[in-house]
Structure formats: C-alpha cells, structure tokens
C-alpha cells in the first residue's frame, strides 16, 4: 500500500488512497481528496517532499497498509524521510482535505476525525502544522511541488489557492 521509492520525475505522480509517496524536486505529487486527509511534508534544504493520502484516523493495531491510517502513515512517512537524511525538525508540514462530502451530520464524521488525528500525531512528533485547508463539503484536487514545497489546492467553483 505505501510506496517508499524516492521518485525523481517531472510528471505529476498520483498518490492513491492509502498511499505514501516521497519525491525529490522537480517532481510534483498529486491527489484528489474527499474525506481523506492529505499530509504534506517538505524538507526545504534537500527539496524532498512526501504526500500521504490518509483514509482513516486509527489503525486499531492492524499491521498492514500503514499508509491508510493516520497513526501509522505519519510515522511511516517520517521513517522514510529519515532514511533519506531528513530530520523531523527540518520539515514543513501542511494538511489538506477532511471534507464531509455528503454534508451529513451525525457521529461518524471521518473527515473531522482524520484532521484531528493528523494534527495530533504530527504534534506528538514535534512537528507543527504550518498551513492547512481542511473541512467543508467539497472535494479538493491537490498538488505538492517538491521543489518549493508549495501546495496548490483546487476546489470546484473556487479559484485555486496555494499554501
């Protein structure tokens, strides 16, 4: 499920549900997010970016598919980056997504739970969230530029924005 190869291509690289991608500039990582949360980590000095397409907040101890859950995906991303010489203190973190796609109320709000889990787990690792665009009821098309760390976000009916 997770992808650990360091990618170095100018083509946009799709990050599917439950996947983790790590790439070196000038690569661009892209995902379409609904209730899932995208966690973008960027090492400015080395120009290495990582994007995790996190589906659910808690693995409940399931060992497989670390990229699917916030509590396993973020440590896996950090581990992968550390193997490339990136220390967590040198990372810029941004989070995006976590929408409530069908605008339903009720106890099961996965988008909100994903956001909360991502922020908490990054915080436990000593990483502050530098920017975020989360919640709402619309999907997001996102691209992480691994040269600059810029996260471009498109929402239907809204002008594109950059974080």
């Amino acid at each position, binding site marked *: 499920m997770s992808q650990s190869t360091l990618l170095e291509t100018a083509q946009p690289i799709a990050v599917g*549900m439950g996947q983790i991608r790590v790439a070196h500039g000038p690569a661009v990582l892209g995902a379409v997010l*609904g209730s899932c949360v995208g966690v973008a980590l960027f090492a400015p000095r080395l120009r290495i970016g990582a994007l995790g397409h996190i589906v659910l907040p808690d693995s409940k101890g399931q060992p497989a598919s670390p990229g699917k859950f916030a509590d396993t995906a973020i440590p896996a991303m950090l581990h992968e980056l550390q193997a490339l010489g990136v220390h967590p203190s040198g990372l810029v973190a941004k989070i995006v997504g976590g*929408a409530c*796609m069908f605008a339903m109320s009720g106890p099961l709000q996965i988008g909100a739970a994903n956001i909360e889990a991502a922020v908490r787990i990054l915080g436990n690792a000593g990483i502050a969230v530098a920017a975020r665009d989360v919640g709402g009821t619309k*999907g997001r*098309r996102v691209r992480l530029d691994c040269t600059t760390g810029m996260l471009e976000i498109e929402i239907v009916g809204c002008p594109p924005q950059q974080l």
Partner: protein
Amino acid sequence: MINTQALADANLELLHQFFSAATHDASAAMCRWTDGLISLSLDEVREIPMEEVSAELGFGDDLLTMVVLSAQGEVGGEMILAFDEYNGRRLAASLIGRPVDESAPWSELEKSALTETGNILGCAYMNALTRLIDAELVPTAPWFLQDYGASVLEQALLAQASQCDRVLVCRTGFHRHGEELNWRVVFVPTMALRRAMENALRRGA
C-alpha cells in the same frame, strides 16, 4: 489445502448472480422512466486494490455530475450515478423536454431530473437486493452534487476501507438503443451486505 483464489472467484461468481438480478430490476425501472430509451447491463463484479479504484472506474480528477444514494446501517452500501457534463446535460434535457443549454448554470429542474433518475435507479436496485437477502435496505434521499469524481468515490469506499484493502465494486453499463453511453453507476456494498448476499446465495443453491 484450501485454494483461496478459487474460493474468492467462486464468491465473486455468486455475487455476480446477485448483482445481475438487481441490475435487471434497475434496468426495467430505467426503461420505464425514459420511455424505453435507456437500459443497463452489469459489466463486472470484482475486487480492486483500494488505491487503484478511482483510476479503474474512471473516477479521476475530472469534474463529474453525480447523484449519490446510501443504504445506511451495517448492512448497507453506497451508490453513485455519474455523468460528465455532456451526458448529464443531455439526459436532463431529454427528461424535461427542453433543448440542451450548456452555457447556463444547472437549473433546479435539471438537477431535479437527474436526482429523480438516481432515485428511481437506486430504489429499484436496493429493492431487488432487499428481496434477495433477509435484510431490508432503505435508501436515503438522493443527493445531487458536482465535484471531482475521485473525492466522492473515496467517501463511498470508506465502509469497506476500514475492514480490508481490496474493495468489491460492481460496474454497470448504460445503453441507448444498443449504443453504450458514457454514464457510470457504481455500487459499493458494506462488508456486512456482502456477507449477507453470499449467505443468501448459498442458502438458495
């Protein structure tokens, strides 16, 4: 030794029978709704790795017009009826008897026509499934939305994603006078519904 692949294939074959029956009923309802213009066929029932589902089903990062219905509860599922702009506009125009106008924003009447189409299709489908298993599927009100296809599909996959890495989906084709249309309907059952269907088929075998 149990051949797990053969077991999985046998289960998919059983489920195919089930979804064929539901698709047959949905097709009959769709024919009535469109004066015999549109029919459905079940193209495939299969398991796909979660990260590949969007690409496999053509729900990429393009803007789609969709009607979503849920059967809520443990034994439930999500249905998405999806069109690109061209096909959605044409269906709406044919249903309300007006010329196609792609320059204007979607009118409430156009939205209502597509929403009702999703309602008829979804209710026929879920009624058939209810008849075939020993559990009642009650669809929610249909929900019209225009968004990136993958972002909506993602939400529909959540119930299965929490329990496994491969997702069971059935893909259905639409036809007008035998010609295939670029419409899509995807039904994603919960794991509990999937088990209920497999049990019902074994009881009937």
